[in-house]
């Protein structure tokens, strides 16, 4: 399964955006994704991939690439404890 393509498809679907508008380099800010949109995307990803994305990982998702990288690590069962929110002020997939 191509995780990147699936992530982009889900973001496009949930944001009602054209697929062509989204690349792996798009940031949430560029796509107009706010914090509530972020948790919605997270929900859709969890449903699609049948997994739980920890809150600490969610807080680190501020771009399409970060979503793909984090999701890939969760899918591969890798340790994600280092993925904690560092950047402030950018919309992330967390309302907290």
């Amino acid at each position, binding site marked *: 399964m191509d995780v990147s393509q699936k992530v982009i498809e889900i973001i496009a679907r949930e*944001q*009602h955006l054209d697929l062509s508008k989204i690349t792996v380099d798009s940031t949430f800010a560029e796509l107009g994704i706010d914090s*509530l949109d972020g*948790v*919605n995307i*997270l*929900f859709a990803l*969890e*449903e699609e991939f049948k997994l739980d994305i920890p809150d600490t990982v969610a807080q680190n998702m501020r771009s399409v690439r970060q979503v793909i990288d984090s999701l890939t690590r969760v899918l591969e069962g890798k340790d994600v404890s280092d993925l904690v929110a560092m950047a402030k002020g950018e919309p992330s997939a967390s309302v907290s």
Partner: protein
Amino acid sequence: MRRVVITGIGVFASTGKNAESFFATLIQGKSAIRRIQQFDPSQLSVQIAAEIPGYEPLDYFPAKRLDLLDRFSQFALIASKEAMESSGIQLRDEERPRFGVVTGTGMGGATTFDSGYYNLYAKQVTRMHPFTIPKIMHNAATSQICMEFGAQGPALTTATACSSAGHAMGEAFHIIKYGMADMMLTGGSESPITFGMIRSWESVRVLAVGNGDPSRACRPFSLDREGFVMGEGAAMLLFEELEHAKQRGAKIYAEIAGFGMSSDASHITQPSIDGPARAVRMALAEAGVNPDEVDYINAHGTATRVNDITETRVIKEVFGNHAPKLAVSSTKSMHGHAMGATGAIEMAATVQTIVRGVIPPTANYTQPDPECDLDYVPNEAREKPVRVAVSNSFAFGGLNAVLLVRRFE
């Protein structure tokens, strides 16, 4: 003392998708009650309701916006848009803190609750959708209206069952009267027609079954009444301080002159005489209107035996010798009982009686009830000048809201 007038009206109801068609249907005495379309009602004893016919949300909102709107917020926004447009108001940014919103709803995001819990309990999903909370909260409609129209002033939501919209409008009236704002968009919104909600109401044994001819199911004040019929929809009115309205040359529909509210403090479902009577008297007193000046009462008129007889006795108690001369009608016979929205839908009708000099009938009236012996304007609309009108809302829980409107002079 600051006076408050109504300068905008919007209605989105089963009997009409705008204020004009809504009132036109009422004048024709036509009921919008039908077999339920939103879901398959065949497992229910009660299979009828007053739904908004052919409602397609995408006709009114972009898909992205709809994601965060329960049906009750959608109705609220549609009615608000019409109210704002009909008012002709062009808000300046510095006026926004003086523009507020109060809306009523009894059930909030009932349809989102119903489908969410169905998924959770019946289909055993492990997660609820993250938009569940922002959609179901009772203040969602108020907040969505504030965002849509840039209302930054006093804003709140009232939840007093069937009186929700009455209380909302009363609060909005006083917020302007006592100087906290100059304009208030106010009314009510409800979308209570869900499988779970109808099942719950069935158990209270107050709903009309009416499966033979749904359009005749709701028969307020008639001896052969069998209960109320659930409805849905919204109505919003723009209340405005008189001088503010005059300065911008606004069209004034009517003046909102009195508000009364009271608690029965006696029974959770059974209404008293004393509680509603005190609310009516309070509204008359605030307006400085004598009982014999009232021309029309838009009754709570649910078509339950208890309501109809109690409300009749309340009117006789307050209005005395004038009671038989009053025109009293229940438009719920046509638009159903839209719960927390119903007071606003009925206020939209009440204001039109003043503007147009015609009173909508109590539809489906077939047999006089010896205990309900007032003039209920049976079946046919009546041309009659209306200078002062009262709209009653008496809720489960014994919380009463009564509003008095009069011709602007």
